[in-house]
């Protein structure tokens, strides 16, 4: 079933009723849309521009995007709206500035691997150490690359759901409660238990490959 403010908007018979319904819709969801815009554009003015862009795009072609929401109970309208709003904002940024090198998949993956490395192997190692030493010494760079390869290979051997769990915890820094909700685990304790088991499994896997600690 569609939310009332959405069904009223989509069913509005004449322009006046449509304008009124649109005002109500914006009032109802402006806070969420603003947060979605701010999650992509940190600068205040840019976020407000993105918000205006969002409203324009949602209105476009007789609310084509809003009409695409499938009210089959698979997701809440607000969640769907946030996904669509963020994508609209991201597309706007990419159209204007292109995909930045830093946000590219390779850079993110490399960062993620190092984060996992820190959390997995020793906790004591500074994430920047690897990059610093790698920059200064060719041998260290080679060994660091080997270590990353070993970790990537160990991660690849895990089940997709387990890899996702590690991503959510170490890349996303999500709280155990949020991870439990996403993965449909009964309690945060189940998240911790699974994480412990996975880290032990990764340690063993790296150990078999000859990696014993943070120093490659």
């Amino acid at each position: 079933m569609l939310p009332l403010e959405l069904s009223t908007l989509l069913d509005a018979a004449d322009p006046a009723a449509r304008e009124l319904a649109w005002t109500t819709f914006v009032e109802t969801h402006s806070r969420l849309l603003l947060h979605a815009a701010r999650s992509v554009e940190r600068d205040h003015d840019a976020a407000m521009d993105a918000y205006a862009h969002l409203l324009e795009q949602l209105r476009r072609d007789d609310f084509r995007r809003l009409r695409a929401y499938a009210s089959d109970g698979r997701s809440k309208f607000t969640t769907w709206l946030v996904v669509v709003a963020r994508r609209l904002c991201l597309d706007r940024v990419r159209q204007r500035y292109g995909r930045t090198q830093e946000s590219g998949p390779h850079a993110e993956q490399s960062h993620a691997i190092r984060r996992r490395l820190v959390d997995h192997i020793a906790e004591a190692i500074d994430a920047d150490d690897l990059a610093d030493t790698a920059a200064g010494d060719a041998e260290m760079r080679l060994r660091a690359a080997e270590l990353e390869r070993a970790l990537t290979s160990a991660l690849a051997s895990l089940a997709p759901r387990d890899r996702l769990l590690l991503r959510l915890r170490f890349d996303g820094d999500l709280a155990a409660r949020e991870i439990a909700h996403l993965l449909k685990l009964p309690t945060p304790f189940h998240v911790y238990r699974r994480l412990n088991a996975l880290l032990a499994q990764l340690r063993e896997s790296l150990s078999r490959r000859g990696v014993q600690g943070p120093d490659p």
Partner: protein
Amino acid sequence: MSDMDDERRDPAHLAADDLASYVDATGTPALRARVEAHLADCTECCAEVIAVSRLMRIRSPGRRWHLPAIAAVAAAIFLIVVGRQLSVRTESPAVLREPVITTTVAPTVVAPRGAITETPCLVWTSVPHADLYRITLFDDAGGSIWESQTRDTSAALPASIHLADRASYYWRIEAQTGWNRWVASDLIEFSIASPGR
């Protein structure tokens, strides 16, 4: 994934309705398994799930404002009724009050965290204006094994609590910031590695 008309028509990524239903923890087990298999290897979609999950912590305005509106009306009635009674009873001069606290930070666990070698002293950061802290210790099955309250920012485990070697324990600190109002830290794990503690 379904052929949703969203901003990312690239079939290499999740459709908006699939991603939204995953964040809402709905959808069939088969769909969820497909989404999880994709998320495990797609940095972009996984980052999107994380970002949307964070954004959805904010409740929709429709739900968010009903309760405060009712509370505001109740408070106004209370102030009118009780205020009149108080104004009759007291004639004391106005006094300065401390500013109202509008935001509250949660306490942060300092120690123990992770693997430790001896029976821990529990330490956390103070919370401004908090007058009481509640500590709860859980075993790895989620059962509460010890709970205590203190006005300090540290506490020692009583001798009656025996922690098993290499077993995982979790603890949380809550700070009381008002009447029946508590802010809690994250749940933190620790384990004792040394057999000779």
